[in-house]
């Protein structure tokens, strides 16, 4: 019943009151509205916990390589503060108004794709790949892939919203969205050699299309086809060891299947992650007591930070963290439920998908459930760009929630 009521209200606001005064009134109203402190608390908790774990995991390496045990911790805290600032700024952006500007979809897509090309002239090589660009004046490094993820979410939400329900449910609409996504993913993969980001963007788009459409069949088909292909590759690699020699990706799969026999660093890394989990046991060695982080886990504050968490806080700590992530996504689901606007709903969906996919992929890699891909754990892993854009995404969700609350209060 409440749904019907707010739905009506929505129409009134978005369609009928287009005068500047009205919109100023509604913005004032918006500012007076509460935000979702549950979500804010969870996010702040995750950021704080992330900082703690980055400090714990990186202190030895930071001291060894940079002379100060707080080297990575300080950089991360800077990025987090900047991200929180951007999140607050995002709260004041009238998204809906901006999204209704002409040519906005084209511009979003151009930005999403364009930033990828920035690594060609401005890219910095690090960790054997060209994924970062130097930000002028600030001096920090930025990963364009993170910008692409954010803008692809916004672009797809706007695109699907414009398409209408029937069109997106059709093969044509689906094909159009996924086609544009594949271009972005392809560019991410080819230019920045970043398979995991490409995969994440693709999955986000897939989830958004799935949620937006009223169709099930073709998605089930694609999921089934994807799983079958994965099974096929695994079967191929495991039956034919020599086949993996040529390709770097296949080698990774092979070393995932048989980490003990592999000499590859990724297999070594995965095994050491497993050792860390085993060493941690149920309750962990205690905060700061990880021994794996000291020498054998390369960059333990990055993608393998979950292994350090397992070692220091045990399975209990790790599962608690997973519950926190699940709670965060659940809070976003509740916000999505209250969102009548299709665009806003799709933005929330995209953000949820983004978080969920990264959490799942990261933990799956650490537990050896899938081959090693470089996916960071949201808010926990060390990484400034990731934290910054994830917080902007949270800001978007909070913004949308506030819009919902403002509407429901008025209604």
């Amino acid at each position, binding site marked *: 019943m409440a749904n019907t009521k707010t*739905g*009506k209200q929505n129409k009134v606001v978005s369609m009928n009151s287009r005068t500047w005064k009205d919109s100023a009134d509604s913005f004032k109203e918006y500012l007076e509205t509460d935000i979702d402190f549950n979500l804010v608390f969870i996010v702040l908790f995750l950021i704080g916990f992330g900082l703690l774990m980055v400090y714990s995991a990186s202190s030895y390496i930071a001291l060894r*390589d*940079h*002379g100060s045990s707080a080297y990575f911790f300080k950089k991360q805290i800077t990025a987090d503060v900047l991200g929180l600032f951007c999140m607050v700024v995002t709260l004041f952006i009238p998204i809906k108004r901006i999204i209704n500007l002409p040519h906005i979809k084209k511009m979003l897509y151009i930005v999403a794709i364009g930033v990828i090309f920035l690594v060609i002239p401005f890219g910095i090589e690090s960790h*054997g790949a060209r994924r970062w660009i130097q930000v002028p004046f600030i001096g920090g490094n930025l990963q364009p892939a993170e910008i692409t993820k954010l803008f692809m979410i916004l672009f797809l939400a706007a695109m699907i919203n414009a398409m209408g*329900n*029937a069109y997106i449910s059709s093969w044509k609409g689906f094909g159009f969205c996924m086609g544009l996504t594949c271009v972005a993913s392809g560019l991410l993969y080819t230019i920045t050699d970043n398979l995991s980001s490409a995969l994440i963007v693709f999955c986000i788009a897939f*989830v958004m299309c*799935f*949620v*937006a459409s*009223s169709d099930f069949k073709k998605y089930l088909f694609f999921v089934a086809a994807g799983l079958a292909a994965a099974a096929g590759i695994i079967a191929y690699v495991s039956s034919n060891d020599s086949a993996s020699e040529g390709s770097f990706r296949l080698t990774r799969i092979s070393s995932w299947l048989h980490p003990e026999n592999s000499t590859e660093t990724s297999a070594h890394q995965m095994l050491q992650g*497993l*050792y*860390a*989990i*085993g*060493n*941690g*046991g*149920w309750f962990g*060695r*205690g905060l700061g*007591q990880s*021994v*794996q982080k000291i*020498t*054998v886990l390369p960059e333990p504050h990055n993608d393998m930070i979950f292994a350090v968490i*397992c070692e220091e806080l045990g*399975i209990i700590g*790790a*599962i608690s963290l*997973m519950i926190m*992530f*699940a709670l965060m*996504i*659940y809070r976003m*689901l509740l916000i*999505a*439920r209250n969102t*009548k606007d*299709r665009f806003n*709903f799709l933005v929330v*969906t995209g953000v*949820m*998908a983004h978080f*969920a996919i990264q*959490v*799942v992929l990261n*933990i*799956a890699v650490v*537990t*050896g*459930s899938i081959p090693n891909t470089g996916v960071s754990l949201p808010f926990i892993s060390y990484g400034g760009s990731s934290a910054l854009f994830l917080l902007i995404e949270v800001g978007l969700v909070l913004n949308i929630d506030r819009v919902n609350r403002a509407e429901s209060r008025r209604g």
Partner: protein
Amino acid sequence: MALKKKKKKSDSRGTFTARQLRFYKLSMLLLVLLVILVFLSIRLVKIVHDHGEDYQRIVLSNQRYDSIIIPFRRGDIVDSKGTILATSEKVYNLVVDASVMMTYDDNRYLEPTLNALGQCFPQIDIAELRAYVTNNESSQYRILAKRLTYGEISEFLNMQENNSYIRGVTFEEEYRRVYPMGNSCSTVLGYTIGNSNSGGKYGLEEFYESVLTGTDGREYGFQNEDATLERTIKPAVDGYTIHTTIDATIQGIVEKHLNEFNETYKNNYRQGNGAENLGCIIMDINTGEILAMADFPTYNPGDYMNTDPLIGCNYYEAVENAGGYIEYRKSPETITQEMLDQMSSDQINVNLYNLWKNQCISYTYEPGSTAKPFTVAAALDCGAITGNEVYTCNGALQVSNYFIKCHTYDSGGDGVVTVQDSIAWSCNVALMKIAQSLGTENMCKYQRVFNLGLKTGIDLAGEARTETLVYNPSTMGPVDLATNSFGQNFNATMIQMIAGFSSLINGGYYYEPHLVSSITDSNGAVIQTIEPRVLKQTVSESVSERMRQYCRATVMEEGGSRRSGRNARPYGYAIGGKTGTAQTIPRETGQIVISFMGYAPADDPQIAIYVVIDRPNFAKQDNVKYACLLCRDILQEVLPYMGIYMTEPLTDEEIKYLEEKQLENTLRYTQGGDSQDAEPGTEDPYEEIELTEITDSTGETASVYPRWMSYPIDERTGYRVGPDGKYYDADTGELAVESTTILDDTIPVNENLDGSSQTN
């Protein structure tokens, strides 16, 4: 409203359901996410449950730091004034960790590190190292250079500090034993195996091994009850420092004179050192503290495998004797460089063993006449003689079926000999007669009282056992008694002789000779103080007083012209003592151990000194004068250093001699020994005043030279050779008795004694 509602319903039914649908879809995805998270949690649990213990073990075994040894520092050995005789120096082993150098593929660490290594350590082959590091990326430990000093590595440490790309090089700490005084005190100190901080061999290093060594510390990890790896540092406990009674200055004086003796007489008559063995001990007569203990040849404990000191020594051979034991037999041959080049490492080792031994405590020999005071003191102490007896010496005494000669046999004997004269003139016949009144029972008893045949218990490793080298009442016959009375046919060590002699002089108190006065820990706190220990009263104070009188007469004028030790007196001092001229086995070779044992000053005994020259490199070895002169030269420097004032008047020659000596010493200490700069005009005016003064007091000096003074001195023997072919003493003109064989080869010898071999 209805219309509106209906309209909305009709056109937004799709929207409405679509919205619901998309929410359901989203909820479904959350469900999928939860399922995946549950699956991942199960996987985590499975990992811990199935492999937890294995993985824990792997992790624990991966830890390298669980066995880092922190080495202890071996305690120092210092002399009585705090001069360091042996210390431990921290040195560094250069260790490379290839895995760290190769951390990044772009070699950002490798090249700067190799450059810095090449710059600072020219001895490292960088090309070889580069090949090694790139081919052994997983290697974490390779020692490239050992025992570098801090000075050698400091340049690299600086570079490392300024360049964070220099990685993978660590320095492992270790201690190296250092002997700052070089060869000085070598046989007293001993050495440590490999100059490391444990494994002391010979001397103080071996005797005080447990005091000098500490306990290694450890930095290790262990599993506590929760199987958590804990890191604990157990600091090293450093070894204690031992403070010896040695005075490095006195030791230096003694060693200087032993070296001079060797330099003067090496290759003199035969190829080789100035004597087969040279030894000298200076001891505090009232405490048993050893002030100096030196022998020759010496070696450098910091380089103890160096074979250079062996050149000129007698060659030792390991021979299996009839009993199946390995015996080290000395050959008359002396070692040359050519021989060394041909010797096997076993043969070299046998000879090095002998070099490393402290001859003052491990070499046994027949002491000869220096044993006479012991015999006389024993006879006086047990009442066998009163001291007022007078003996007649006709040059020989018949004991059983043997004629045992006095050294004055050729000139018809000493004639009438008092007890004092028997010592001062060293009359064998009188001594044999005294021994006869003493008897075999008492002779053996008193030998034990003087610790002959027993160990003195000095705190040095390697003191010889002499139990089998002396007689006991059941084995000692009348001939043995007679020969024992003047120090033949039994063996003793230098330390036994001087410790016993000290007790004869100091009132009868036998102090255990010792070298260490206190032990302190690494912070300087005193752990133990070792006080002088009186073991027994050997003779009564009245006997001791008589012994002081007799020994003084041996050196000083009251002993008459025939006194044997006159050459031992340092100018300006009165001392007492006893000479010794002992034949070695086999008797017929005429090889002699000459010695002088004395104390100073004569009226207030403070130190005892014993100089032994074993088989000097002379044609005629029986000239005890050389031992006396060596003793005089040593005391001449030691007594002033110890702050003991001159009591005796000086003659012109003595002043001249001292002046030259003083000049020599002044030059040595003030001008670094560059004697060419010395001009007579630069002499201290104070000395000239002294010179004039003394000249006034002793105006009468012989102006007519006796005839013998014109005879040429035979360089080999040191005697003047007259036109009749006879030998005259170069200083006194006394007719030297040609090869006085006191004990000819017919007189039975103690079958346990063998001059040329030592059983180890």
